[in-house]
């Protein structure tokens, strides 16, 4: 089977965003992080554990009729720093977004420290500083390693 055949396991989209080279197992986390659950009517294709030259196995997500903004892409870097993001119009790649690690992410994760003030009934959103290999709660200082981030996603 050729590489082309493999790529075609997830069908091409006409307009929208392709998020490729996700680490295997991250596809659903990426959708959760972006707040995409299909309820908006957009077409969503997901490939999981797809063979890949770069990663051995990868996940891939295609979202139709939605172009990710740079800030959405930056938030993705927290769980998928290696991902590539292509914006598609009329079946062609019109923009390749680079992933920049933001300095901070707000309101995306809950703090794993149950004793953190952000987990109490207070009018405050979570905010994490982005470290080289994880995140750190701005309030209690708790550190979340990169491989633990997905389990603390606080998005619907």
């Amino acid at each position, binding site marked *: 089977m050729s590489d082309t055949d493999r790529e075609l396991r997830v069908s091409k989209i006409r307009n929208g965003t392709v998020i490729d080279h996700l680490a295997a197992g991250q596809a659903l986390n990426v959708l959760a992080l972006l707040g995409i659950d299909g309820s908006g009517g957009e077409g969503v294709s997901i490939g999981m554990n797809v063979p890949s030259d770069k990663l051995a196995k990868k996940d891939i997500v295609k979202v139709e009729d939605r172009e990710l903004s740079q800030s959405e892409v930056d938030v993705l870097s927290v769980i998928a720093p290696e991902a590539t993001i292509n914006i598609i119009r009329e079946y062609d790649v019109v923009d390749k977004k680079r992933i920049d690690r933001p300095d901070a992410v707000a309101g995306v994760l809950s*703090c794993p*420290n149950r*004793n*953190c*003030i*952000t987990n*109490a*009934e*207070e*009018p*405050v959103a979570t905010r994490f500083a982005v470290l080289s290999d994880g995140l*750190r*709660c*701005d*309030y*209690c*200082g*708790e*550190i979340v390693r990169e491989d633990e981030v997905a389990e603390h996603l606080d998005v619907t």
Partner: protein
Amino acid sequence: MRQDHLISATQLSRADIEAVLDRAAEIDADPGAWEGRRRGEILGLCFFEPSTRTRMSFDTAMKRLGGQTIDMGSVESSSVKKGETLADTMRVVEGYADALVLRHPLEGSAKMATEFVDVPLVNAGDGAGQHPTQTLLDLYTMRENAGLDDVTVGIMGDLKYGRTVHSLASALTNFDVRQHFVSPESLQLPRSVRYDLHESGAQVREHTELGEVLPDLDVLYVTRIQRERFPDENEYLKVAGEYQIDTDDLEAAKDSLTVMHPLPRVDEIAPEVDETTHAKYFEQAHNGVPVRMALLDMLLENAQTDTTGGDE
């Protein structure tokens, strides 16, 4: 010191720390000269957790500066009991006082509170997080007795949940201090403190037995291991017994060793140690007053400069 609030020891530079300690020393030398410094100003004491030393020493410190204090009382008797958020409580109390002191059982509470108030706010302990004013008086005591450069400090006990330990360990990275951490494995330093120590270039030397390091120490900082940290009583008794010191243990130490403890102690330091020249923990507790006087005076001074648009 150019800080609006004091939330964490990690925000303090060596110069910040020395400025507070120097002023505390001036106050100590002539307390009467500072009596009128804060006349007409009010400090709000907001303690959402029990406290004896910290609350009373802040109260005394403000009064010795000529100011007054208001106290929200116990949580049971306040509107917190009715379900008011911390954010709301602090916004209200801000209107009554020129500066606030907050102790709260949750980590990050003081940091959050600063987002809702404009007056200077001092963290007097946030859960297992930080207790920076304890650290300032610890450093003051250490400087008086052992110095803060080229010294070896052992910190023993509950390093995981002990907020005084977290603040002290990070503040000591500003000085030429070799730090040794002595604790049972289950109560070693948390990841966040290790991260800060690592980032500051400090080496984390950990031990499970005090004997391994005691002869090298200039300062031994003992903290209480709390019963509630252990799933069962036997486990606690087994572990706690290994982190208690008496005069027999101290025979292996330098004659000049300074023994400190943030207090309250239960049985970590045998009462017989009190009579030795090593014991500095009561002196340490007394130092809470001049150090908190210095800190409050500086924060209130900064706040005044800010509102009058004075020198930056």
